[in-house]
């Protein structure tokens, strides 16, 4: 049985245009496919990944055009619905940024900062990205 891993994702929108996704969410999805058992906590600026309806035009340089620009809300939904990876969002970090719960993609779970230590105890490994 896989060691349960809690992944706190804080670094956000780092190279998502070039990679067309978030490197850590991608890594966790790929590892889940290999049998890993992951849970995700979005905190800090990464809470914005859970906001529905976001997007960005692809990069254009002369005649070269990006056709698969990242969609972070789609990727968060993919983790929850397809990969069955629980995704938590830290409520205080949402409030700090003026993000309402109704703006989030369905399926994300809210978590207070004060509840984090109790969550840590449930996992064999905690990784802070």
């Amino acid at each position, binding site marked *: 049985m896989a060691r349960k891993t809690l992944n706190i994702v804080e670094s956000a929108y780092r190279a998502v245009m070039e990679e067309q996704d978030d490197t850590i969410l991608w890594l966790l*999805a790929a590892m889940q496919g290999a049998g890993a058992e992951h849970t995700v906590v979005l905190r800090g600026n990464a809470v914005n990944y859970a906001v529905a309806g976001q997007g960005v035009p692809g990069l254009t340089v002369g005649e070269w055009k990006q056709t698969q620009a990242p969609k972070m809300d789609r990727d968060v939904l993919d983790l929850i619905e397809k990969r069955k990876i629980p995704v938590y969002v830290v409520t205080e970090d949402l409030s700090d940024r003026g993000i309402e719960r109704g703006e989030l993609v369905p399926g994300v779970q809210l978590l207070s900062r004060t509840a984090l230590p109790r969550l840590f105890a449930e996992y064999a490994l905690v990784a802070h990205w």
Partner: protein
Amino acid sequence: MSKKTLTIALMDPPYESENLTTAFRILDVAARRGYNINVFAYEGASGLAFVRQSPHPNPVHGKDVAEENHPTTKDQVAALLAEAEKNGGKVDWVNCGMCVDERGVNEFVPGTRRGSPADFHTFIEASDNVLVIPTK
């Protein structure tokens, strides 16, 4: 009005930050306006024009190579050079020589060249404006 010359110094390596996306957006506009553009690709940015970059499929996205259409910075550099030429500008893209040697990325997109900090100095002296986008 005389043609403008813009110099940009880059430090970030490909696939590590959003800085390069911002830089390419600026460079694209400059090329479309026919500016003369100098780029000093320093440290990690010396890999931007490495010609052996290749796109890959993305199994997590469920896409093959063609569907994923993964960006490579070498293609963006080549497109920048072509766009500038089309609009009457030119690009002098210098890859820091020592930086490419230590990274083993010394095969460049045609039209870019190996250089040194002396080139950056020359660029600064000859430019209407200089933008430095450092690694943070």
